[in-house]
């Protein structure tokens, strides 16, 4: 028993070291703020689309964390998400006309709710609602916009098919958008050259919602921007009859070849040799049309 004090001291040191290590882990390697559930008030928002937003995702003002997402529910009977934000009591002064936006940290990071202050003098109340929201940006849509073709609309409502014959479709690919007044209304279903014909037959699948297209409308192959992808533009005519499934668009305008345009511009006329393809609207099918 004479050694008891040294054991006691050693054991005490061991226990103190253990708790010191625990304190170190708990304070230095974790964020106590993460699990800090101090007094907070709740604000609801409604989003058309929450994307990948998750419960406990941060709520930020000017990039500073002010709270977290408490719950994400579907608004009953609506295609809307109700997001409940839990905001710390120390941030009581958020204007009630602030805009809630779902952002992504970085390109692939987690999503969070950002609040931009409005002009209102009255702060949002506990249990109140932020009416102005912007939904999550879907990366696919952004990329679609960027590449200019525009996303073809989904075909939930079904489609009807019309065909058009083009002497030259340029780089038009199946799946390219069909646009009316710049709005995508369908997509190119197929591009074929019928046997015995020198023209490309393009089948367009148009959403049934856009059934009221005059049957003397013209179809033209356009390019979005200078180097964008090609799409089919429908230019409405004046006929009282509407296009029906299986109809043919008689008036077509073929793709403009950039090379031809430059050639015309430079030599003031169409190129004399036909190696590079015919002038737009010419009868000679070029290589691109002969798939």
């Amino acid at each position, binding site marked *: 028993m004479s050694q008891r004090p040294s054991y*006691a001291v*050693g054991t005490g040191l*061991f226990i103190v*070291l*253990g708790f010191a*290590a625990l304190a170190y882990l708990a304070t*230095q*390697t*974790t964020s106590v703020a993460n699990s800090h559930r101090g007094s907070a008030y709740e604000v609801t928002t409604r989003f058309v689309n929450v994307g990948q937003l998750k419960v406990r995702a941060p709520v930020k003002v000017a990039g500073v964390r002010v709270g977290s997402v408490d719950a994400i529910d579907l608004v009953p009977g609506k295609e809307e998400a109700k997001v409940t934000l839990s905001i710390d009591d120390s941030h009581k002064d958020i204007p009630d006309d602030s805009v809630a936006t779902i952002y992504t940290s970085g390109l692939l990071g987690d999503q969070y709710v950002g609040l931009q202050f409005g002009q209102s003098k009255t702060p949002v109340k506990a249990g109140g609602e932020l009416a102005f929201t912007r939904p999550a940006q879907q990366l696919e849509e952004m990329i679609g916009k960027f590449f200019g073709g525009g996303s073809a609309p989904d075909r939930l409502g079904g489609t009807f098919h019309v065909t058009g014959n083009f002497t030259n479709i340029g780089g038009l690919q199946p799946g390219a958008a069909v646009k009316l007044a710049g709005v995508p209304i369908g997509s190119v279903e197929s591009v074929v050259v019928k046997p015995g014909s020198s023209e490309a037959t393009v089948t367009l699948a148009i959403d049934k919602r856009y059934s009221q297209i005059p049957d003397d409308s013209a179809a033209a192959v356009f390019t979005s921007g200078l180097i964008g992808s090609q799409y089919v533009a429908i230019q409405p005519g004046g006929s009282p009859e509407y296009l029906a499934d299986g109809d043919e668009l008689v008036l077509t305008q073929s793709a403009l070849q950039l090379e031809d345009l430059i050639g015309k511009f430079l030599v003031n006329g169409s190129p004399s040799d036909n190696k590079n393809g015919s002038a737009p609207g010419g009868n000679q099918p070029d290589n691109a049309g002969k798939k």
Partner: protein
Amino acid sequence: MTTRDDNVVIRSLAQIGACGLFLINILGAVPRSFRYFSETLRQIWFVGAMSLTIVMTCGLFVGMVLGLQLYDVLSIFGGTSATGTVVAIAIYRELGPVVTALLFAGRAGTSVTAEIGLMRATDQLDAMEMMAVDPVAYVVAPRFLAGVVALPLLAVVFCAMGVFGGHLVGVTWLGIDNGTFWSNMTASVDVHKDIIDGVLLKSFAFGIVVSLIAVFQGYTTPPTSEGVAYATTRTVVASSIAILALDFVLTSFLI
């Protein structure tokens, strides 16, 4: 205790059953063992403080190798800044409690088994009973309590050393930014989920299991030198299996 004709399954079941009854026995003896509190303290010193060297060294190296491996893999995805996060979470949730418990079973569990087994083989336990000293209260319970107290503390020290090792490799050696390392770690590690549930709860459960197996094997060892040798081996084998199996069960409940 058992005949050799018995089926392996029956024998294992009998062992587990006897082990459970022994646990109840120990828990009943715990209040009486407080009379021998200095003995408990001495055992904490022996199984806990004396295991610090091996636990700290191993923790350091586990953290270092994790840092190295994760840096190598994460650099494929350009995500080396997540090294600290992954090192911390891997150590807190799995490696810290599990490796510490395995080391503890090898370092302390075997010596407890051998000590009690030798007491049994040399009739010391019987002598205590003759002197009206309850061997469960005086010998077994202090060692059991010491293991239950020491293992969580050792696991926490292991984790701290592991994070330090990961920092050493990641920041000092491989050049991850110091601030990025810590801020990513603090942003992702949660006190409740990772430290309390991950480190403390798991290592507490492992402490109970490892200590129980060690004292049970020692207490029920056949009183021969061969019996003590087998008992020591069985402690390591049974502890390792129990730790890893329990780890899976606990994780599936905690996650």
